[in-house]
Each structure stands twice: as structure tokens, then as C-alpha cells.
């Protein structure tokens, strides 16, 4: 099986007095097709771990290999390129551009990773169809409901056809019905072969995943799926 993510003794310490060790010597392997949730109280280091996984931050010590590449040996620009083509992000706050149409928002996920211009609209349209928003492409985000906005964000994340989809509290701003439908969507994406790592503090979300990892004070405890 191909490892998508390999962490070996990864720590992340934020300087200060006293220094804060947000992630403590973590070992973790995620293989292709995994559906994993990381749960834990706030301040446990979940987001920091996700940032490291997404190459948005780098570990203070330890080795992180993404798709077999040692990210510590890569330049800033190469790590940026790597996440641009291989990692999709979904955030709690959506981060949609309010003045741009839905399809343009999805297309921002395709600007920087050399997707040919003529393919972008097509791929963005496909991604929107995939999340069930094919009929809303010319709307702007303020005209959409919270669940729809998050679907747009997911479409933007998957339009570039990444290997790994990282979600940081994707349902944090949504009610339970909407959450269910988003989780159904994650199940479908997983079936398409996407590797999913989801950070959440909601039991409802973590129950759907195959692998559940609990994070406490920067350390990981893997529990068998219920």
C-alpha cells in the first residue's frame, strides 16, 4: 500500500516564554484511501498537526514525508507547489471570495497548479456537479446557505484532483442535518479514492470514519473504530 503521509517523531514547538510544544513526537502513517478523523479538545494541537500535514507549517523536529517526499528537504516554493497540486483544504470558515461567482471560487483552486485555462471551467463545473451544486454556478457565496458554501469550498478543494483532502472542522458552522449531508459527500469522495483526514470535535463526524485518532496534549492515541 502506498503511504500518503508518514510522520516520524514529528514535534512542533512555538517559541515564547515558556515555549509551547503543540505537537509532541508524533508517529503517524496514512495510506491511500484512508478515511481518518482526528478528535480532541481545543488546544490539543489538532490544527497544528493538520497544518504540518498540509505543508502550511513545518515541524520543528522529526521527518514528514508526503507521497514519499521528505518535505523537510524541500524549499518553501516546492512545498507550496506540492500542496497546491496534491493537497486540498476545507476550512471551517469556508474562505470563499464573496464578490466572485461560485464557479470562479472553485476555479481559484486551479489557477496556480498549471491546470490549462480551457480545462478550468470544465473541471470546476465537474467538481460542483460532484458536490451537488451544478445548478448554482453563477451565484455568489452570500446568496448560498452555510451547507452550500461548504460544498463550494469542498468543490474548490477537489477540483484540482488532489491525493489528500484535509478538513479542519468542516462542519463546525453547520447544523446537524447539513452536517449529515456533508458527511455523506465525504463518504462518496472516499469511494472515489480520495484520502481524507478530518479534524473535528464532533462525535457525529468521527463516528463515520474508519480510523479515529484522539489527540491529547500534542500526543496521538489511535482507537479502534467503533
Amino acid at each position: 500500500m502506498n503511504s500518503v503521509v508518514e510522520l516520524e517523531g514529528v514535534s512542533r514547538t512555538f517559541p515564547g516564554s515558556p515555549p509551547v510544544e503543540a505537537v509532541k513526537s508524533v508517529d503517524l502513517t496514512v495510506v491511500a484511501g484512508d478515511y481518518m478523523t482526528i478528535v480532541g479538545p481545543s488546544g490539543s494541537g489538532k490544527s497544528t498537526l493538520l497544518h504540518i500535514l498540509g505543508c502550511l507549517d513545518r515541524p520543528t523536529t522529526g521527518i514528514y514525508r508526503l507521497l514519499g517526499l521528505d518535505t523537510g528537504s524541500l524549499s518553501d516554493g516546492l512545498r507550496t507547489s506540492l500542496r497546491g497540486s496534491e493537497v486540498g483544504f476545507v476550512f471551517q470558515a469556508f474562505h470563499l471570495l464573496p464578490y466572485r461567482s461560485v464557479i470562479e471560487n472553485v476555479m481559484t483552486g486551479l489557477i496556480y497548479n498549471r491546470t490549462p485555462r480551457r480545462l478550468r471551467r470544465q473541471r470546476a463545473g465537474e467538481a460542483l456537479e460532484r458536490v451537488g451544486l451544478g445548478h448554482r454556478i453563477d451565484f455568489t457565496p452570500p446568496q448560498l446557505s452555510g451547507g452550500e458554501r461548504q460544498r463550494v469550498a469542498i468543490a474548490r478543494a477537489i477540483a484540482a484532483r488532489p491525493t489528500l483532502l484535509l478538513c479542519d472542522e468542516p462542519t463546525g458552522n453547520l447544523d446537524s442535518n447539513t452536517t449529515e449531508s456533508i458527511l455523506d459527500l465525504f463518504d462518496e469522495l472516499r469511494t472515489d479514492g480520495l484520502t481524507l483526514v478530518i479534524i473535528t470535535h464532533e462525535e457525529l463526524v468521527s463516528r463515520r470514519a474508519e480510523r479515529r485518532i484522539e489527540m491529547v496534549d500534542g500526543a496521538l492515541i489511535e482507537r479502534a473504530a467503533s
Partner: protein
Amino acid sequence: MSDGKGRSTASRIVRSRLSLRDLITEAISGMLARPGRTMLTILGTVLGVVALVATLGLTKTSGNQIVTRIDELQATSVSVSNRSEGGFFGPRRGISVIPWDAGDRLIRLNGVVAAGTLTRVDTAGALVSSVPVNDPLGQSEFAMDVLAVSHGLFDVVLADLTTGRFFDVGHSQRHDPVAVLGSGAAARLNVSRVEQQPAIFVGDTTLAVIGIVGEVSREPALLNSVIIPDGTARAVFNTEAPAEVHIRTELGAAQLIGQQAALALAPNNPEQLRVSVPPALGAVQSDVQEELDSQFLILGGIALLVGAIGIANVTLVSVLERVGEIGLRRAAGARRRHIAAQFLAESAAMGFVGGILGASLGVLVIVGVSAQRQWTPVLDLYVPLLAIPGGTLIGLIAGLYPSWRASRLEPVDALRAGT
């Protein structure tokens, strides 16, 4: 983990890029996202460019009008008079050194278009009247200047006849008792037709009116005077010598003629003549114009500076507002330079639009002012054309600091802050 398919080599990574076309598209979209704010931001640049273009155009336009209309007259006028010798008890009348044939002497100089003498005739206080009509209520005798001129003077002052004719060399040589009236003098003397050569009286002397002058371009005193040939003045009124010589020169020849005139008129004692020439025209005018130019250019420059600061300010605010967008773009694979390029392109695009609007409005201002003043608008083509890259450059410079700030944001911080 090397799995033999070369997965572990960095060369496999698809490098992020931002094509020029995408950059421009993103910049324009960013600019159009909030059109109202963008227009207000651009306003400062627009005003600065308008000020600069209009200033350059209007100084050029008005400068052209001065040269073509007013100054041509002044710039070609030279006059020569006697330097009055002041005695101990006050000014004493000197003996004029100007010859009666001054006009003929001067016309031979290259650059002289016309020349003639002008002398106030001493009539010993004699009043002027037309044919006596005994009207007890109306005044029929007037104190009026009698001026003796050589025939060339009519050319010098561009005299325009209302009716009749000028006198000529023959009248002067024969000492004919003829006169030409200025329009003002003719009206006072009730002379309006000259076919019958009506007589007027200067004291006891009878003169036949042969013409009426309607307009003169200089020496307006002529219009209220009785004008007689200099030969007549010499014979009838014992006028000793001409008092002044007036010269009209070719455009640009005034300075040279000014140097030569005194010598041509009085070779033995040129120092007794006072020559008035117009100030060296080019120098005065360019001084005035440069001063005007530079003042308005400084104003325009200040307006542009304020405009640039406005763009810089708004771009900086929008960077802070769009922190989340910056984080998202960084997550989507945008490198620092791509973020910097985008904000730089946005501010440059605002400067570009400001330049276009400013240049257009500036030209409109020039045309509007010219139309109102009935001037011919004159503008160097390069001024509005340069305004456009100039505006872009200003936008670019204004965007340097904000875009640098945007590019320094850490993606993690940007995503966290931009909720």
C-alpha cells in the same frame, strides 16, 4: 520512501505558476470586486493627472495665443524721441536732431516695414472749428491737438480710413493745407463726409479735410486730433523738427532696428536720441510661462503624490481585509511572489485606469477652457500618452509596500486570522 517510481524526487513536483493572463484576470476581478471603493481610490490619481495634463496643455495653449495675437504688435514697435536735456531750472527744450526725412531714411533698413514721424504742432493755443454755424447753444470751437505726421506713419499705426484718403508726399512737399481727422475729432467737429473737402479752421488757418481715420492700432491720440502733413506744419506753423519717429519692424527685428535707428537718424550724435524697443520678448515670456508652468506642475505633482498615498493606503487596508483570501490562495499553491504580484497588479491597474481617466478629463478641460476663451487648444501629443504609463507607474510604486506585506503573511496565520 523510495518506491522505485521516482516518487521521492523533488523534480516530480508540479511547480506552481501564475501566468500573466491569470495575473491580469485576477487583478481586474479584484479591482472590480468593489467598484465604488476602487473609483474613490483612483480619484486622487485622476485629479493629479488632470492637473498635470491640463496645466501643460493650457500653458501651451495660452502661450500660443499671446504670441499670435497681442504680442506681435508690441514686439514690432520701436520708437525714437529726443533725449530731453534737463537744465538747472528744469527741463529745457533741446534742439531736435531728428531729420524731417526720418521715415525715408529708416525704411531703407532691412527689417523696417514702415516708419514715420509724429510731431505735436505748437498752434499757440488756437482753437479748432469747422465751418462757422452760429449755434448759440452748441459749442463750435474746440481745443484739439494738431499732429504733423509724415505719410509713412499711417502705415506704422495701421490706420484705417472711414472715408476719404490719406495725404501723401506731394501734399507735404507742396505744403498743401489739407488735414485728415481722427474719428473722435471728426465727430466733435461734425464732419462726416469729405467728398466736398469741408474746411476746418485752426485759429486763422484754413485746412481742407480729405479723409477720416476710423481706427489705429497704436498711438490712439491720433483719433482725437487733426492730422496734417509735416511739410504743411513746417510752412504754416513753423514747426522746427519732428519730435518722434515711430517704426514698425518685421517680427523679431525690433532689437536690431533699435540698435541701428539712432545711428541712421543722427549719425553725428546718436546719443541724443532715446530709442524705445520692446523688452526682449522671448526672455520675458518664457520666464512668465516657466514660472506658471512650474507652479502648476508642483501642484499637480502634489496631487499625484496624494493620489499615490491614497492607492497605497487602500491597498494596504484591502490586504488586511483579504488576509483569509491570501491564506486560501497560499493553500491552493500560490507562492509568495504570486501574492505580491497580484496586489501589485491590482494597484497598477488602478493607476492605469486613473491615468486614462485623468488624461481624458485633462484634455476635456483644455478643450473646454479654450472654447470658452476662444483659443485654439494646443497640446503636445506625448502629454496625455505619457499620463497613462505615468499613472500605472504611480499605482505600481504605491502597491510596493502593501504587496510586500501581503507576501510576508504566513499561510497559517492568514488562514487563522481571516475568518
